[in-house]
């Protein structure tokens, strides 16, 4: 699939890397500190057996993430040429772009399906609502609404009946 950031130059990718480096550094610190807070060894509580405690591996991973994100930050800062006010304005403009709006709607519909529809209404109905709403909103050709309604109904019934009765898999 085409990356909508494909037109973004190498410099701009590095600017974004600065932000991702900061986030990863924070994540690495969190993992390292959490590991240090875990007991050294839980059976005999022997501090000399630091290497078999539950925190040992998270400490290694946290330290590794910190090191790598620092390197990424250095590369990002060196090759990005600095972050200007125009970069920030361009980033805000991108957030208002068509791609981001469509992405947000697609994500929201998926979240609605998982967290709300499946939790409160029967599976077939929830699936039909999810399918039909996606097809209507993201339609790119001139297929009629009735056709999409029919496709949504057929797909949801086939999936629900097929998996629950033939494959005997409980549905969410």
């Amino acid at each position, binding site marked *: 699939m085409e990356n*909508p950031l494909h037109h973004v130059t190498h410099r701009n990718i590095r600017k974004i890397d600065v932000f*991702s480096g900061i986030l*990863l550094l924070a994540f690495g610190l969190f993992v390292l500190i959490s590991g240090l807070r875990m007991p050294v060894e839980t059976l005999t509580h022997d501090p000399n057996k630091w290497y078999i405690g*539950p925190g040992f591996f*998270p400490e290694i991973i*946290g330290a590794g993430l910190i090191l790598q994100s620092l390197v990424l930050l250095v590369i990002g800062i060196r090759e990005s040429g600095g972050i200007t006010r125009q970069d920030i304005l361009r980033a805000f403009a991108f957030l208002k772009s068509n791609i981001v709006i469509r992405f947000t709607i*697609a994500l929201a519909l998926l979240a609605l399906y998982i967290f709300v529809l499946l939790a409160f209404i029967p599976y077939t109905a929830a699936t039909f609502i999810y*399918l039909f709403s996606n097809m209507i909103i993201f339609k*790119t050709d001139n297929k009629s609404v009735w056709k*999409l309604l029919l496709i949504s109904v057929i797909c949801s019934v086939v999936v629900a009946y097929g998996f629950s009765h033939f494959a005997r898999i409980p549905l969410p």
Partner: protein
Amino acid sequence: MTQIIALFAAFIKFLTIKNILLLSASSIAGIIMGALPGLSATMGIALLTGLTYGLPTEAALIVLLGIYVGAIYGGSISAILIGIPGTGSAAATVLDGHPLAKRGQGGTALSLTTIASFIGTLFGMLCLAGFTPLLQKIALNFTSAEYALLAIFGVLICGSLTAQGLPLKGWIGGFVGLAASCIGFEGIFGYPRFTFGVVGLMGGIAFVPAMIGLFGIPSLLNGLSQKKNNTDIPTVGKNEGPGIFAMLKKYFPTILRSGLIGTGVGSIPGVGEDVGAWLSYDTAKKSSKHPEEFGQGSYEGLIAAETANNSAIGGALIPLLSLAIPGSAPTAVLLGALWLHGIRPGPMLTFEFPTFISEMSALLLLAAFTMRIFGWIACQFAPKIVKVPVYILMPIVGVLSIIGSYALNINTFDLYVMFAFGIIGYIFEKLNYPAAPVVLGIILGPIADTNVRRALQASHGSLTPFYTRPIALIVLFLIIYTILSQLKITSRFFTWVKSKIKKTSKANSIKE
């Protein structure tokens, strides 16, 4: 000799009408999944792993292998007809396949890829049958130190080879996966790590929902967020390409080299078919007598890419069965499927299930034949398959992703895991962080964690086993090489050494 007899016996065992029908259905499903951009072999196996739980082990393996082989081949159909690879492994196929289709030679291109995929799968199968028992014998000598180092090497090499641009991003992805693997009760003391009191996290992150999230949800979000109308699809046209024997005769060096590259790359943990295809294509172009034809519709380029990506299937199964370390993303899911059915890959596999490797090889052989037969039939209907609009296909992918994530443990929490990893996968994709190392980190994390601690416990905190045991030393060297080879300072150092050697030899020749 015994292996050949075992392979033949397994082949005969599976040659029943029921198995052939099951394999045919799964091959067709795999080809369709592979042909549709946005779906992939990994998705197909991930979605069906939970669904095959109710089937007997034999039937489940038939379905999963059929989907795997079919999907890796199926990616070439959309790569040729619409210039979009159906799977990552078919990306190299676009370069020469699509130009052929635009010239009205789509039928020829599809025939070439069908035959090349068939030959590649056979090659991989032979390597699987031949090398897996050897590697298992070596793996019997592995201790915790070797397993720990191998797990770390797997994550690092996967990160290096799958990252576009900075290999550092691949390693970061791997470490994020390793961090995710720490969630839940840890393997030695049962201490809860990173659970935050949430019951759903105490069992750890189930890797099938995580994998579906990392690979499937970004495809769904990308497909819907980019407003794309269906492109015009050229007709398939007549097949004017060489038959299988003519192809073997004319392109034998390319086929042999591609088979070796594909199997070799496939056997590297977590790397898989797409890297195999690119490496083979690149090597074929550099060694070709007509490199200028590559990218314009070269038969040799097509054959190189497709032979390699299918031979990588057998290659990826080698470390899976011998070491329980998956060679590719689809085999990572296959590992979960094998565990689900009570089969534990690794050095002890031959003792617990003596005929398993022969049976897998025989299934791969059968899958190659069904792919060959149904592949050509599928090509005739291919323009209809790839015409399914993205806005209809992707929501259906979303529905199947939900079922695939839920069916494994019948646990609603897995849906939340899938959703969370879907967002992570989407962000990673946009920032050029590969998803495969994350998955491998989740799978290999527990292996690395428990084995590092066990090795240190056995040596009372000493690091000696990690660099004194021969196999551990080799793997340690590979880890150091993987890291150093990607650093600019290393390449600068070697450039300096080379220039020094040149100056010295020049000075010596002047003196003489």
